[in-house]
């Protein structure tokens, strides 16, 4: 093969490769889950008002108490949150500390929601303007963050927690305890 042929073929192949890549990437499904960039980082500063006397508010200091905690972002208006309620209860029954962040919700509606679907929460912080949602890098409901005893976000579970995930989460909690 002459140098001239190579000079013609190489750019052509590069161009075809570029077109193929562009077509291939266009065919990819749209990104549906948006992972938080806060995983691996300390919990951002927050100070959320409590829902009622039974559920005091939540601040970042509460998440640095040496205990591994789950922070569940939920709302009474969120249908998948109902679906994951039994899984949260199962985790709470195993002794897992779970705090809630109620997004764009009212104490009255949450009280009714917890009455119907069980109450796994120690603390419930109110997030009426999605500030905590944005601060945590969450994008929808429900989402659950695993936070180690030093207040570092270890994991983010996007979407409802499915029954088969309970064991996985318990394992993740054990791993986070070691650190």
């Amino acid at each position: 093969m002459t140098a001239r042929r190579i000079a013609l073929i190489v750019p052509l192949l590069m161009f075809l490769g570029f077109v193929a890549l562009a077509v291939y990437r266009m065919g990819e499904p749209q990104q549906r889950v948006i992972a938080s960039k806060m995983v691996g980082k300390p919990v951002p500063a927050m100070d959320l008002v409590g829902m009622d006397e039974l559920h005091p508010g939540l601040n970042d200091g509460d998440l640095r108490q040496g205990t591994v905690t789950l922070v569940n972002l939920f709302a009474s208006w969120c249908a998948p949150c109902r679906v994951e309620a039994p899984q949260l209860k199962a985790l709470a029954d195993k002794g897992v500390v779970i705090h809630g962040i109620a997004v764009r919700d009212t104490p009255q509606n949450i009280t009714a929601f917890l009455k119907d679907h069980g109450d796994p929460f120690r603390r419930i912080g109110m997030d009426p303007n999605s500030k905590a949602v944005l601060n945590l890098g969450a994008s929808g409901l429900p989402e659950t963050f695993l936070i180690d005893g030093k207040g570092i976000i270890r994991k983010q579970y996007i979407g409802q927690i499915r029954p088969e995930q309970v064991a996985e989460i318990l394992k993740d909690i054990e791993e986070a305890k070691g650190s």
Partner: protein
Amino acid sequence: MKALLPFAFLALTAAAEAPALPPAQEAAARALMHELRCLVCQHQSIADSDADMAADMRAVVRERIAAGESPEQVKSYLVSRYGDYVTFDPPKTGANLVLWAAPLLFLAIGAVAVWRLYRRKGA
């Protein structure tokens, strides 16, 4: 009267989100809103979306601009939470660079090919 109803609703939504910023800041905030992706509605900016989450994001943009942050700072706050995905104007680094550089690269290759072809013919 019935025909006017939609406009009444428009007026209501506008009132619910009255621009609270001085004109220059409001303009900067709005420009940024068109650059930020609504996270719960694919391929819509938070300026164009009616989703609650988009409204909350607009409020955060206004609040931070009002507090004296530059649009760049507000954007980098959101990028620190969601990555480049949150902006429609991602930085020209990493894999994105290929997209920007490829047309120039092919143009340069073409120019060299043409130049060589004519030089040979001239000789």
